[in-house]
């Protein structure tokens, strides 16, 4: 194997630390004892077939869904016991999200969409839009700033979504099939820009995907199957 990826040191304390997470939806077990650490600046691909529980894992890590049992900490905060307001505040200031589609507010312009998380934090409109414009520029979609999500292409829309996820300078970006609705070229562009941006800001990424070529942008991958993480370590263990 040639060259080692510029991987963040494993000695650092994990940002997110999950132990033995379990989550069931009615009769279906979505997570069946999952443990995972995410360290600062690390890009972790969560892979697995559909229905394996990889999205549920991401939703738990992001504080969107509360696991039934297990331990889950973000830095020194316990996400299991955190209230909705506390978890929402984390999403607002510490996390960013890029989904396959539908996360942009169709009524707002792309610039307003990117500025939205800042405005929810109470940043003044002018300042929020100035910072939003900066991120649109970094993702090379300044030209669609004044357009609404419905008027731009899928690739541009995803780049706007990435800009919005990064505008608050989050510690972790959660990306769920960010290229799922895009062709290879546009998917590649989105992934390249995303990874470039987070590399500079030491932002960790939890990247849920079933596409190996997307997972290839990660530093390491975990595979979820039947609600459990498959380790790639030795055979006889």
């Amino acid at each position, binding site marked *: 194997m040639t060259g080692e990826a510029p991987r963040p040191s494993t000695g650092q304390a994990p940002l997110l630390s999950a132990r033995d997470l379990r989550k069931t939806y009615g009769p279906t077990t979505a997570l069946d004892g999952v443990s995972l650490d995410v360290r600062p600046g690390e890009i972790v691909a969560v892979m697995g077939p559909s229905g394996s529980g990889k999205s549920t894992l991401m*939703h738990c890590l992001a504080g*969107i*869904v509360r696991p039934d049992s297990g331990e889950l900490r973000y830095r020194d905060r316990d996400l299991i016991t955190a209230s*909705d*307001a506390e*978890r*929402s*505040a*984390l*999403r*607002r*200031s510490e*996390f960013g*999200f890029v*989904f396959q589609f*539908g*996360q*942009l*507010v*169709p*009524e*707002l312009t792309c610039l*307003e969409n990117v500025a*939205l*998380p800042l*405005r*929810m*934090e*109470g940043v003044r409109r002018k300042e929020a839009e100035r910072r939003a414009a900066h991120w649109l520029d970094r993702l090379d979609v300044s030209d669609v700033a004044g357009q*609404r999500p*419905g008027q731009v292409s899928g690739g541009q829309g995803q780049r706007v979504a990435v800009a*919005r996820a990064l505008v608050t300078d989050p510690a972790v970006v959660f990306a769920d099939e960010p290229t799922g609705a895009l062709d290879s070229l546009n998917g590649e562009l989105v992934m390249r820009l995303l990874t470039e941006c987070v590399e500079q800001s030491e932002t960790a990424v939890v990247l849920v995907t079933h596409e190996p070529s997307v997972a290839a942008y990660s530093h390491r991958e975990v595979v979820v199957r039947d609600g459990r993480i498959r380790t790639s370590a030795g055979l006889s263990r």
Partner: protein
Amino acid sequence: MSPGRPRQLAFGVWLAFRGGVTGWTRLALTATAVGLGVAFLLLAASVPNLLSARDARESARVDYLQDLDRRGDDTLLLGRVDTEFHGVAIRGRLLQPEGPAAPVPPGLTALPGPGEMMVSPALAELLSAPGSELLRARLDYRVAGRIGDEGLSGPGEFAFYAAGDRLAGKSGVQRLNAFGETGQGDGLNPRLMLLVVVAFVVLLAPVVIFLAAAVRFGGESRDRRLAALRLMGADRRMTRWYAAGEALAGGLLGLAIGTVLFLAGRRLIGRFTLWHISVFPADARPSLPLTVTIAVAVPALAVVVSLGVLRKVAVEPLGVVRRAGQGRRRLWWRLLLPIAGLALLAPLFGGRADTHGQLTQVQVGGGVVLLLAGVVTLLPWLVEAVVRRLGGGGGLSWQLAVRRIQMDSASSARLVSGVAVAVAGAIALQTLVAGVRSVSVQDTGADLSRAQVMASLDEGVTFTEAKEITARFAATPGVRSVTGNATSIALVADADQGMPFIMGTCADLREIAEIARCRPGDAFITITTEDDPEPPRPGQRVVVEGTTWTIPATATPVKGERSPDGGAWRGAILVTPEAAADLAAKPLRLLLYLGLDPSEPDAVELVRNTAAEVSPLMRVYGIQEVQVDDRFAGILRGILVGTVAILLLIGTSMLATTLDQLRERRALLATLTAFGVRRAVLTRATLWQMAVPVALGLVPAALIGTGLGLALLVMLGLPPHVGVANLLLTVSAGAGLVTLVTLASLPVQLRLMRPEGLRTE
């Protein structure tokens, strides 16, 4: 950590205004709908001022309280010369100043000079209209000016002040040195008051429901938007404030639109005359407390409703989870409201309610509100219970419609709850009014075959003059018969008692009593019943018009007969002029009964003109077989008009909701069309989708409405009475609305069904 609530609210308002074309359309729709409701509420809030301004003007010109004995520099003689022309009531006064300081009635700057009159704008118009020749001949004065607004009860009032002439000493003429009164007039009759309370509640309840419906426009896209905000880190509380802010935007904008609509509508209001009542636009000032209430309550309602809607859904970062629809709707709490309403009304059933009491009015108002609210709560349950049992059998359009309703019966029920409440309220009101009316219509006992019109002259004429006047009426075209009596009051000496004194020829007297034999010089006394005061006795000394006179000893008792107007003379002295020659020369009151030729349509007008020629003070009025408090006919008409107006209001909201739904299902419609489903099928499905819930809504509405109306009747101690015609009319108005809305939504639906609709994003 999180920004304060005001900022979140403001952010929500900002969101509402950032909608692009669709967002703006939605906001405009909500705001317009809220605006319509607000305009309606403002109008209702103006009613108190409207009434008090009218009262103030009317009491400022009151002229019947004074009658001074001595003339002075500041006195004015006033004669009432009200008349009627082709069914239009005209208020008329003759004014004759007795000195330079004579009072001038409100609305005039100076008294009319000799031969002049001042007229209201409405009368001026009527006078100059073609076909008013008879009126012009009757009011034979030169028009010297207009009566100002402050002297009129409303812009549509017909009134004139004319110069009087030789009014002094005439009976019926008053001497006054001032216009106006300080006290207040008699209020509405308590039954009418109750009616007004119920009417307000019934008319405003659908407006409130309408407001609530308007706030929900575009709810689904709002939910999506909120979910996106949740993902970005809005917690539940923030989400609620954003939603509240968005609703507030619609509410506030609606408030502004409503104010504009109200101000614009107010300028038109002066052009209409309803129930003989017209109002000045300037008087339609919403009362301050009510306006403040509206200004606070409407946005608050918008916020409360949108928060209430949010309560049923959990807006989570990953989307919206509907909490409703799980499990069956429970019936028991839905029955609480109507039961509470009945409980409030029940104690009043015992007998006649103390309808004067404010508490009672609150009780009735509250009971009615709760019962009507019961319609709203019961409807979703009923729609679901019935729809669940509907099969998907039948045509494809039926199947599509039924399955769609089954999927979300609550929104179907919401769609029609406004219609149901409006219809229920209207029916209750109509039942009540029709019931009250059936009692108020009284048989007067008049005999129209003998005479149709009465004319009276109070100013005093001698018997000879009376006969002369009678002859002039007999010569008037269209008059078939004239019976005349000269009447007065005979005062019993040393006693505070008066009895009717009637002088006439034998033929005249026979019209009012059963007289077998009569020759000139005879006198009669009509017999009395026990209830009457002491009857006159032959030989008794009485004073008539200041002259002492002895009832002839020969006066024979006779049985009084009903006069053509239904009254009966009891305890009256009837004399032939020969029996009291002194009195025949005295000024007596003249009372004429006129039989008219039905083939002459203007006979009444001609009679009025003859009367005006005889004396402006002579009064002419029709005899009616039944006396109808004609306010009720007007009220019934008004209810129907109000109901239709409210139904149209609701129709706009139904249309908006339907269009909203259609737009959301655009892709589905296009796909179905692409499959080859005929458009007619889809259109019919839309019709069914609305018609089924409306039908389900109208049935309980009709039942509750009728029940409520009957309950109110019983409360008032009136016999139950159901007006089937009005009921059917109202129900079909509701049904017609559905058709109208479906038709109105058709163009959009057809456009959405084009295969191009398949292209999304």
